[in-house]
């Protein structure tokens, strides 16, 4: 017998108490929880996102969309970045004002090459205010998962308010499970030393989130 047959056979034997005709949906699941915690309105939701991002040590900036090129150029310059990897679908005007050398996200790029890059600039798929999270879905302005992982400095642009949702349930509704997703809440961190949180381990140690309004 294959491992599969053994395991499935054991499961069926173990569930002898479950009535034959019972279907999965016959087991009641009461979804009495909230779709969102509180009713805030758009501006307050964006404020909450900013507050919660900062709470977990992301550096938050706000600007109008027209001011993006100038802001991004300034952030990269202040960081002292000379190179930045960018996804293929990042709007070219975003980095038009910066003089960093741009490396497009390509399938052949090795992890070692990425390790030598100073920064990465991306958009996002959705941002969650209640948890202070940005979610990447490998869309055209976000690129492969590795480019937001290996470089030590990540600038993530959130288009507000349209990309901001209140809660985890609302975020999941907007996301496609077939795409590889990365939920990011602050820079990498650990609680492994005396259960106390320290920021900065393997992922980017500096996460800057730009909330770009209309």
């Amino acid at each position, binding site marked *: 017998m294959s491992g*599969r047959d053994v395991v499935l056979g054991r*499961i069926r034997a173990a569930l002898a108490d479950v009535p034959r005709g019972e279907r999965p949906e016959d087991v009641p699941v009461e979804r009495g*929880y909230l779709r969102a915690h509180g009713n805030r309105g758009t501006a307050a939701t964006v404020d909450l996102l900013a507050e919660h991002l900062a709470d977990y040590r992301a550096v938050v900036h706000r600007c109008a969309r027209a001011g993006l090129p100038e802001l991004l150029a300034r952030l990269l310059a202040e960081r002292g970045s000379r190179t930045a990897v960018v996804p293929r679908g990042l709007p070219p005007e975003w980095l038009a004002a910066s003089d960093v050398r741009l490396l497009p996200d390509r399938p052949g790029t090795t992890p070692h090459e990425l390790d030598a890059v100073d920064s990465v600039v991306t958009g996002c798929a959705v941002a969650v205010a209640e948890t202070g999270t940005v979610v990447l879905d490998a869309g055209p302005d976000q690129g492969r998962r590795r480019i937001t992982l290996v470089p030590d400095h990540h600038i993530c642009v959130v288009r507000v308010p349209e990309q901001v949702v209140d809660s*985890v349930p609302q975020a999941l509704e907007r996301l496609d499970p077939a795409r*590889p997703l990365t939920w990011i809440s602050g820079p990498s961190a650990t609680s492994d030393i*005396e259960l106390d949180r320290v920021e900065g381990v393997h992922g980017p140690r500096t996460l800057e989130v730009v909330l770009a309004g209309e």
Partner: protein
Amino acid sequence: MSGTYLGMPAFPEAAAESTRDRRLRGNLRHATHTIRDKRARAVAELDDWSALRAAGAALKDRTLRHLDHYLEQLEERVTAAGGQVHWAADAEEANRIVTRLVRETGETEAVKVKSMATQETGLNDALERAGIRAYETDLAELIVQLGDDLPSHILVPAIHRNRSEIQEIFRTRMADWGRPAPDGLTDRPADLAEAARLHLREKFLRARVGVSGANFMVAETGTLVVVESEGNGRMCLTLPETLISVVGIEKVVPTWQDLEVYLQLLPRSSTAERMNPYTSTWTGTTDGDGPSAFHLVLLDNGRTDTLADTVGRQALRCIRCSACLNVCPVYERAGGHAYGSPYPGPIGAILTPQLRSTASALDASLPYASSLCGACYEVCPVAIDIPEVLVHLRERVVQGGPAVVRGEKVVLRPARGHAAERAAMRAARWTLDRPRALRAGQRLAARGRRLVPRRLPGPGRAWTDTRDLPAVPAESFRAWWRRTRGDGAGPAGGAGPTDGAGAGR
């Protein structure tokens, strides 16, 4: 990891040892109290917590009652998305499968994300025997691996180590495994994290094979979910060409929507965060992004035995948050190693004896590693009634009875060590049925009360090893009642011996 849980003593002996370790107790007290208060605050932020908790429990119950259905659905979806699914009935089979898969890549090393399932199967040792080196990349797992130690906590396997011990382990052991610790390494947590970053960086960048577990698997979509903090998970899940995930069969949830419950319950319960820094989800393989080969190894290893027990089954709801460890007065004092398995604390005390059966003295002692205070049940995000299962398992240990072990129906014999206790209970039943005998016995005990020792002799000694013998009162309640009819010392019919001085009566 060369440490092993095999041959460890039963909980009372191990705990008697560990509770004398003052440094261990200090480390544990500090860490568990830090996280305890934070968890309470994180949970208090959500006013629908109890509804989330109820939904989390109900969804797991739905899954468990139809586990075969959901696993077959999961297999189909993972396969359709480009993954390969393997089934392992026990630890050996899982290790064999993983070893073969790594060998087929031609590689001799793999990077690992923290995984309880592979701790349980002893995968690292199995790989080592096959000439494959597995590098643990979670900071706490790294500390355990470098220190040639055993994990003692579900979330923070090195919780028994404080910062200066970690500094020492890094300074003396990192060079044996790769890049040595930086010169002048201090014991500041930020410096220790930096040392781990530098040490592991090279391994991540060159890794061709990654091994992981998963927190959730979505049957409807074939999606796997890994929840982490450091980014070591993302490294292992996305940089290698081959990814092998070993996951317990109980980790499946029915639908994508169901994640909305668990992604709220888990981070707040485990690290006390609104959301952990990184959550990765993937469905099979994606062209040009991440591993080109994905293997999912579904692990039974005693889970179906647990499923067969209609009371004990609820232990399979566990999402490994470790909130129950952090609040447990027994865990806080005894430490994780005393539980003799990768699953310590209250959840370990009900999970381990079900996964491994109660045949060994260690596993039979685990249901007793509790004061039944119920704090674990209170904080459990999926409402596992741990005290209920503890009592149920104590019954099984003492009385024996039907159970399923490795898929076979067996009738367990009563544990030998409990013969004296059973005899005492039989004697008590006989006496309590016979008022005269009881009266005579109580009178005798009261007269000899000064002679009662603090420790029982003979077979009773084991019982008093871990308990204080109660003091014998000068007069039993029954004798007092007979003497006073209750009206000598208080209002008729209501008072007891200590309730006689009620004001205004």
